[in-house]
């Protein structure tokens, strides 16, 4: 009796395991298994059901829900269910949903993740989206292997924010950001820090992969190219050495302070709480930083090697993108919504510049008078830096999205004296390379 029961139970367990793994195998894109996207079907000539996922905050949630409502009002044959989320847990959920075959139809995407999903066939080709009016350089960031899998939802650019009040207190002029060099940036930062008493002349700078990218580009390299890593250990070492130089000049705080700043959310950052004169941010964060700090920050360009801003090889980044799941049951409806978001003035009226400056140049003009003062400053800056642009860097290939985190770890070792810059640079490059291979 007992043996039969045991056999039965083992058999049942095996069946259950087999069913699960068949489920896993069935989740390969295009295999048609699983229950499909959360929104369900809808091709019988009736309503299309779309699930739309994004990360954000209560403000963005309200805006996006308003857009969904407006769209549904104008298009009665489409029903959209919103799936708002929070940034860090958003990716866990999306990965689980994708593995289970229930990925949402329309997915808000980030540059660090778009290759992970795009390269593995999880995202639909968006060739039917009208990007003809997009500003030059803003479309390519969404292309993986020459296929457009993400439509730019808002332009931003990495740069530096400066706090005029801190400069005032130090009785130092704000630098002329069109002519300053890296060395001058160090001098200014050190001077302001010592004269005003704030710990950071320049915060959260060297640990940023975007600033590293800016540095590399000015030295003729890039972070990534289609074959993988596009820089050498010597370049990384130069970056780490520069960081040590800045630190010794007392421009960027003590090792403890730098380590504490790493990974801090925006509203606890040094600049926001009044502990920094300058900090690296992305342009679309100006409004949030102003609100959180109660100050009006100044936008500062990254420095150049030669002192000429036009040679600093800046670029337009996509703050986030819209993608469509490859397994969506309503591809036309999904594409139609993205078209509406990207090109319809009605959408821009609600969204304004919350996700970044609209890449559609007509919508930019349409929306400009309605923007808040901070957003108008940003819009002007984005337009102003056009002559300073160089080709947009490609999206990090699969495994490359974590480069910033890896770099930060080795930089911590260098700062605390646990590794030399040469060793750290070599190990850093090795680790990123092995991440790219798996």
């Amino acid at each position, binding site marked *: *009796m*007992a043996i039969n*029961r045991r056999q039965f*139970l083992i058999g*049942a*367990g*095996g069946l*259950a*395991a087999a*069913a*699960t*793994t068949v489920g*896993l*195998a*069935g*989740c*390969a*894109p295009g*295999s048609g298994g699983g229950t499909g996207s959360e929104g369900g079907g809808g091709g019988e000539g009736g309503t299309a059901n779309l699930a739309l996922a994004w990360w954000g905050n209560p403000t963005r949630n309200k805006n996006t829900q308003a857009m969904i409502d407006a769209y549904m009002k104008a298009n009665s044959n489409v029903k959209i269910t919103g799936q708002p989320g929070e940034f*860090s847990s958003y*990716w*866990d959920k999306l*990965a*689980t949903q*994708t*593995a289970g075959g229930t990925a949402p139809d329309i997915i808000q995407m980030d540059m660090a993740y778009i290759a*992970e*999903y795009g390269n*593995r*066939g*999880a995202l639909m080709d968006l060739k039917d989206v009208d990007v003809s009016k997009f500003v030059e350089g803003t479309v390519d960031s969404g292309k993986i292997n020459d296929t457009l899998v993400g439509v730019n939802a808002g332009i931003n650019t990495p740069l530096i924010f400066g706090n005029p009040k801190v400069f005032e207190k130090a009785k130092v002029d704000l630098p002329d950001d069109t002519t300053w060099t890296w060395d001058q940036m160090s001098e200014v930062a050190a001077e302001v820090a010592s004269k005003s008493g704030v710990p950071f002349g320049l915060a959260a700078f060297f640990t940023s992969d975007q600033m590293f990218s800016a540095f590399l580009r000015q030295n003729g390299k890039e972070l990534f190219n289609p074959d993988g890593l596009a820089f050498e250990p010597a370049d990384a070492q130069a970056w780490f050495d520069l960081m040590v130089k800045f630190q010794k000049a007392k421009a960027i705080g*003590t*090792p*403890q*302070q*730098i*380590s*504490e700043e*790493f*990974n*801090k*959310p925006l509203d*606890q950052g040094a600049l926001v709480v009044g502990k920094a004169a300058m900090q690296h941010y992305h342009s679309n964060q100006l409004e949030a930083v102003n609100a959180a700090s109660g100050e009006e920050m100044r936008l500062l360009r990254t420095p150049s090697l030669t002192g000429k801003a036009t040679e600093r090889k800046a670029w337009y980044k996509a703050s986030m993108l819209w993608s469509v799941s490859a397994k969506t049951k309503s591809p036309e409806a999904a594409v139609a919504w993205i078209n509406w978001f990207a090109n319809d003035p009605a959408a821009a009226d609600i969204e304004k510049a919350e996700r970044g400056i609209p890449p559609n140049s007509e919508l930019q003009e349409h929306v400009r008078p309605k923007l808040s003062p901070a957003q108008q400053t940003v819009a002007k800056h984005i337009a102003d830096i056009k002559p300073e642009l160089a080709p947009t860097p490609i999206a990090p290939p*699969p*495994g490359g999205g*974590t480069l910033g*985190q890896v770099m*930060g*770890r080795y930089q*911590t*070792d260098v700062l*605390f004296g*646990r590794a030399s810059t040469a060793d750290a640079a070599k190990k850093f490059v090795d680790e990123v390379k092995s*991440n790219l291979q*798996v």
Partner: protein
Amino acid sequence: MSAISELSTVHRVKAKTPEEKRLAAKEAGRDNKAGYLFLLPWLIGLIVITIGPMLASLYLSFTNYSLIQAPRWIGLENYGRMLTDERLHNSLKVTFIYVFVSTPLQLAVALAIALLLNEGMRGLAFYRSVFYLPSMLGASVAIAVLWRQMFEVDGLVNQVLRLLGFEATISWIGDPQWALWTIILLHVWTFGSPMVIFLAGLRQIPGMYYEAAAVDGAGWWVRFTNITLPLLSPIIFFNLVLQIINAFQAFTQAYVVSNGSGGPSDSTMFYTLYLYQKGFVQFQMGYASAMAWLLVVIIAAFTAINFWASKHWVFYGD
């Protein structure tokens, strides 16, 4: 003394002669029907919800699985990689330090406070709730934020230390040498759960033993070691086994305090945090599954040791 000496010699080890063994085997199937009936909900849950996914994860450990594409068989490659993965070895080291420092510490504090609160006293309910509060909050993002702030170089802890005359220039949370200790401290701070279990166990000790001991004139220490400890031993054992199992799998506190990074410089990269990163952030779920099964082996080994050792110090009424 008579009552106490009686207790300490009773039912420690069961003798096993061949005759008794035969009888025992027959006895083993005595309640088959009832046993499996009572066990039925658990068995159903095991088959449907637990075993399938567990076996699936075992299978996945032999594959390259990105979550986005179907798994691809690669045999023992994941396990081979684990041998040379320095970050994995570091995470094991971090986890072992955490388990073997924070568990005894937390349990000792929990037991001490439970003993203190067990003696009837005024305000007992209040103190018990207050000491349990941290456990209710411990894993929350709000507390993690505060914890980070408190241990910064100019945070509350250093400010207090400076008031007491120390130099206090270390960033407890930013220095790779010290960050792990802030998490150990956080774990000890949340001693409420084992404390509550100890309290429940203490209350279950029949008062008559203490009365008999009082009559015999036994002092506090004698009562503690001869009555409290033996009769509480099943609960101490339970707390020990489960806190160790939990400590090996500690995730949430490291995740929220380090903002998911395991930093600074991997000093708080717990094993399950590294596993989560490999699985969900780096899309290497196959490797993460292999890591998970290695952890099962480690935990099972230590649990087995615990069970084997329990024969020598745990006293059951049956």
